[in-house]
């Protein structure tokens, strides 16, 4: 298991996410805001591409394609001198970890990926064993924020006392590589740790806490009814628990909860009065960041204005 001391705060490549960029860009801005306030040394590269996650998990890209794209992104990280990859999306995290492990541990795959680079005149992308380490160079942004939670408590400006919030941790963070996370995979508490440090009252457990968000990559498209049913089940268990806010750590879950909540209300005839946020947006808000110009909350489908008014933010 990873320890908090193992989380770097220098030379972090903030790994952009397609779904963050296109659906909730405030997650990226809020992350940068937090990193700046917390004194974390990071860089964002224009050259870094999509990790292939969406295409990979709808069974489109082969593992070799995915691994070669990851190797290119590792070269980007290496070349800019920021070799510690910090992902905002749990699927980027899982894809990069797995590809890195494959590149380090499977000689045939590494040779094949490198021969593609050479044939295409991209020698500078060639991956040498050990260029990155899947355990000590690839992280989730939440781990970085979590490792600074004492600082967050000191810096919190907004009074969130009495706020009843719950966490949804991302499957591709804690279920995919349980040996590689901070804490207990049967009861992940990173989001709780960060939100708690900012003054929220975190629900210890709720009925379907470990159930997937329901997106399931292709599932949302090929079996939409099942996908929404899973999400509705989750929302119902949150309603019963009486939460005001659900916090998550992955743009895919975020889309599934925030974009689909109004759809589910219509299709299932239910009503939910809680709102959604990424943990970085919430921590930035706590530190006094602007809800729109930093956290980008105007991009959400479930309006947050009542929530923001209640806590004196607007």
């Amino acid at each position: 298991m990873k320890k908090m001391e193992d989380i770097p705060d220098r030379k972090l490549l903030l790994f952009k996410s397609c779904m963050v960029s296109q659906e909730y860009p405030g997650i990226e801005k809020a992350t940068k805001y937090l990193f700046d306030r917390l004194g974390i040394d990071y860089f964002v590269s224009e050259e870094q591409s999509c990790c292939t996650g969406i295409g990979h998990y709808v069974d489109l890209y082969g593992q070799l394609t995915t691994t070669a794209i990851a190797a290119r992104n590792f070269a980007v990280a290496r070349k800019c001198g920021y070799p510690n990859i910090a992902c905002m999306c749990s699927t980027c995290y899982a894809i990069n970890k797995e590809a890195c492990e494959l590149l380090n541990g499977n000689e045939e795959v590494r040779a094949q990926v490198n021969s593609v680079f050479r044939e295409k005149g991209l020698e500078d992308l060639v991956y040498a064993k050990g260029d990155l380490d899947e355990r000590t160079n690839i992280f989730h942004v939440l781990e970085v924020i979590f490792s600074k939670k004492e600082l967050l408590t000191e810096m919190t400006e907004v009074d969130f006392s009495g706020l009843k919030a719950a966490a949804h941790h991302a499957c591709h963070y804690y279920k995919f590589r349980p040996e590689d996370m901070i804490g207990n995979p049967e009861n992940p508490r990173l989001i709780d740790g960060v939100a708690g440090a900012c003054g929220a009252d975190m629900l210890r457990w709720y009925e379907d806490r470990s159930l997937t968000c329901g997106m399931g990559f292709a599932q949302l498209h090929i079996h939409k009814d099942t996908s929404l049913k899973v999400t509705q089940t989750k929302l119902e268990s949150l309603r019963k628990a009486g939460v005001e806010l659900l916090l998550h750590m992955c743009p895919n879950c975020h889309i599934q909860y925030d974009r689909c909540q109004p759809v589910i209300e219509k299709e299932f005839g239910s009503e939910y009065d809680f709102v959604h946020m990424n943990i970085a947006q919430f921590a930035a808000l706590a530190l006094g960041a602007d809800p729109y110009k930093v956290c980008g909350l105007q991009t959400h489908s479930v309006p947050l204005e009542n929530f923001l008014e209640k806590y004196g933010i607007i």
Partner: protein
Amino acid sequence: MTLIQIDEYDTPAGKSLAETIKASIRTPDSLGLDRCIQCGACTASCPAARFTAYNPRLLVKRVLENDRGVLEDETLWNCFYCYTCQLRCPRNNSPAKLVQVLRQLALNEGIGLENMEHFLGLGEFFAAHGISQVPEHYLGKMAEALGSSWVEFKRDLPAIRAELGLGSLDIRDERKEIRSILEGTGHFERAESLRARLKESGASEGIEENKFLNAIPGKNKSEDINLEKNGRYSGPEALIV
């Protein structure tokens, strides 16, 4: 130029389903497929098993019996890839990983092609922009379901990104590295063959090929996706409601 067959890596030929799965680069050497004790921990914690007829424990059993009928079993396509089974399995097996290899095997045999229909254009978009987009039919559905506020948001995305101080959506890729990698690792051939067989099989719902490519403004100019001249994103066609 050596042509890479995706099959050689994801679904290498083997004497049995289990041999192919174990030899696939999608599964680690430590995979405990042969160690499965049929305890059912996977099924007990599987969301697909809870909400559909899919059963990962049974799937593992059938694979170990080399029952190739699993490839035709439609429930194979119900897995969420949430890895709950992998977390809970006491033998380091991973039904999630088995399904990934089995779906590739099924596609090789022309089974389940219709499930790929909405996604076949992702690679072209990736090559042109360096990012992934949710399939266009979904954007259309979201526009329908969420109405004007979401459509507005999509139109205002470039302005919002500018306000947040975020750069271009497209990556900088002067050497067309993404296209080269997709080409070199056999992606386009694979996508083409799936598309051709889908058409042949008549299973297609009639979604126009590359429809979602056509929906991207300035698709040939890699720097053009986020900001049109007037500062507004013209948006995918399906969003004009």
